């Protein structure tokens, strides 16, 4: 077992900002564990602009924003980066077990910062009746398929949910020549940033149905159509006000869930409703020395806010480590 001052789980915008901040606050022994094959996390697939407006006072794409942090991390003395490293266990004594090709590592840390981000709510979680054909994607998966793999998931798309990722993907699909038949939003107005509604929906004349939901997905092997129904103020279906939309793709953009299964395993108190750690002070968890930042702490709308939040976690971890000596 190796001993480290600070272990950070996740090297997306949160993990990277936390590492840089911790180092600037005096921590000189940092292990940054990232499960993917690159630094950058979800930013790598966010080719649209809108990042860095607050943090750098510039308008950047996701990869450009991410590279500002990567530059500071790569080769920085005191920060060891371990890619393809998947943490499988965390204990309350701050012992982490991780695996990567060829190695299972065991490390004890003085402090741990969790920057494990979030996952998307799926069709199954929102209980949509119907069949289980191919052609149903979470917005993030569709984004990865288009932007990283160069594959077009579908040609006639219905977007469920008007959150930011759904709006961005509505535009992305349109730019690739696909047709967005509709955005279906159960609330009375969009959940996303105003600029996204303007730039992704209004600019492209995409029809949005507020106060509606998908009641059924049809299609034996591939999506063929969806049933859409109006809902009342209590979100109950009004069956007489329904219609169908033919499509070959359903894009789910119905919310994000912080990924906190690891700290839950370690015994950290988790809010059952939000899946976030129960916290008296920002970034702290119920176990002293285990910190949480970025989307795994709380779902943020902007990567800029994630970086600010994570930087704070970095300084708190540094303070905690100093206090141990």
């Amino acid at each position: 077992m190796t001993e480290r001052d600070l272990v950070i789980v996740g090297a997306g915008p949160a993990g990277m900002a936390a590492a840089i901040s911790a180092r600037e606050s005096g921590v000189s022994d940092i292990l940054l564990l990232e499960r993917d094959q690159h630094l950058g996390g979800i930013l790598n697939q966010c080719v649209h602009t809108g990042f860095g407006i607050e943090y750098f006072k510039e308008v950047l794409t996701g990869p450009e924003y991410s590279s500002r942090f990567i530059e500071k991390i790569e080769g920085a003395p005191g920060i060891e980066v371990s890619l393809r490293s998947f943490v499988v266990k965390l204990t309350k004594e701050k012992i982490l077990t991780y695996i990567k090709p060829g190695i299972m590592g065991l490390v004890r840390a003085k402090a741990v910062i969790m920057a494990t981000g979030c996952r998307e709510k799926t069709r199954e979680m929102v209980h949509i009746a119907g069949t289980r054909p191919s052609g149903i994607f979470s917005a993030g998966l569709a984004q990865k398929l288009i932007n990283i793999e160069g594959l077009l998931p579908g040609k006639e798309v219905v977007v469920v949910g008007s959150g930011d990722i759904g709006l961005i993907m509505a535009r992305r699909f349109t730019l690739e020549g696909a047709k967005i038949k509709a955005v279906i939003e159960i609330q009375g107005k969009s959940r996303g940033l105003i600029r996204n509604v303007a730039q992704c929906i209004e600019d492209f004349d995409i029809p949005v149905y507020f106060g509606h939901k998908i009641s059924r997905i049809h299609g034996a092997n591939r999506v063929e159509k969806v049933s859409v129904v109006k809902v009342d103020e209590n979100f109950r279906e009004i069956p007489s006000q329904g219609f169908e939309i033919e499509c070959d793709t359903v894009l789910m953009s119905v919310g994000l869930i912080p990924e906190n299964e690891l700290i839950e395993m370690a015994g950290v108190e988790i809010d059952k409703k939000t899946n976030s750690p129960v916290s008296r002070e920002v970034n702290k968890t119920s176990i002293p020395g285990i910190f949480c930042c970025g989307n795994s702490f709380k779902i943020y709308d902007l990567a800029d806010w994630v970086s600010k939040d994570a930087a704070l976690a970095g300084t708190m971890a540094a303070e905690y480590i100093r206090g141990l000596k």
Partner: protein
Amino acid sequence: MHSYDVVIIGGGVIGTSIARELSRHKLKIAILEKEEELAFGVSKSNSGIIHPGTQNPVNSLKGRLCVQGNALTRKMSKELGIDFKEVGELIVAFNEEERLKLVGLKDEAETLGVPRLKMVDSSWLERNEPNLSREVVAALYAPTAGIISPYRWAYDLAENAVKNGVEIHELTKAQKVSPVDGEGFEVYTSRGEYKARFVINAAGLFADEVSRMVGVDDFKIRPRKGEEFLLDKKKENITNHLIFPLPSKNSKGVLVIKTSDGNPMIGPTAEDVDSKVDLSTSDQGFKKVLSSAQRLVPSINGDDVIAYFAGLRPASGEDFIIKHEAKAPGFINVAGIQSPGLTAAPAIALLVSDILKSNGLSLKRKLFFHRHRKKEIHLFSIPLEETKRLINKDPGYGDIICRCEMVSAKEVRNSIERGARTLDGIKFRTRAQAGRCHGSFCTTRLMKILQEETGKRPTEVTKRGKGSEIVKEERSSDVIARPEGSKQSQL
């Protein structure tokens, strides 16, 4: 034209069980499966229960073969390296009238040879099944009930059958079966003709249509849909046994069960339908199952439901139809195999073997029959120490593809070697995509590995066969795609 001793139409749990049993003998055997992979029909929607043998009519094939099958499945599961968990079953009563019915059920079951049954009271239930509704007054406890993964069972049987010489032909749909004078049959399929001395019809939902091909049309398959709902694995220990209500006329009722992979499951519904292909779930089904399940285990919550699916039971009449058809000598129907079909499968295989023998097929035991199959490795079910050993031996075990279920690249490649050709095939064999994120994070890497191992183009990767392709077009002419197996991606 290929010539066989036995051709089995249908590669689900029944077809693969029969093939494995027959592969003990010196016979040329082929399974013809119309889907891209085995077990993609009825078998994949099975709830995975190995029944103790209660609730079957006395003097029925179901009754006899279920009890026999329960014992055989235990034995064979060890040989074939698959997990069988004996969890036991409780059929519950809410009042005195129901309790008396349970006593009747117990007597009938004992006549059938079901072992170790006992009636238990509310204090036993409070101690051993604490989350069960306090309205339950008594239960019939059948300790020999167990759970198994139904599709992995079919795969393991198939793999062992193949090791013992059986051929499996996927994407091979039987279209016409013509008797050849005194010589058996010619089976015309979507992929060529097969000559067979004996044909076994294990075609599930389509068994009546296959039977009609040889002029035997005295039964009809009337699909009965069952919707099932999986709960979060965190609730794995909400119950200790399989919980059954008293059975109704045509179904065992809505159950609260454990599954081999850990997730509790509630359901199924029982609805007669016309379609043999419509597998949709419904809001009404969800509501009905949830309320029935909550009657048994009140703490079950709708929010715990993380996945749902439907299956179609190939129902036909009261009992299994397993017989040699005098009208078409050499043709054996194995039809109407609904519950307890999974449990009965090994016993059905023995019965079919006997039927073949008494109709002229000479069964000569092979000198070397590979009885065992090595259990495959799943990182999510072994201790970390063993994972470490594996990673040191083969780095591919340390390359995690599916983070939610901890599935490594090596396991994914193994599954493709063992027959997975589709994303569902990989999911059923490895559990990749079956976890919390339902494939959001791992799909792209799974697609790449599948492309590499099978030579498929990205647009040819499917969820479960032709028609269910994942993506519509490739746009990567400007993107420098790094193949999964290249040096750079191994770093």
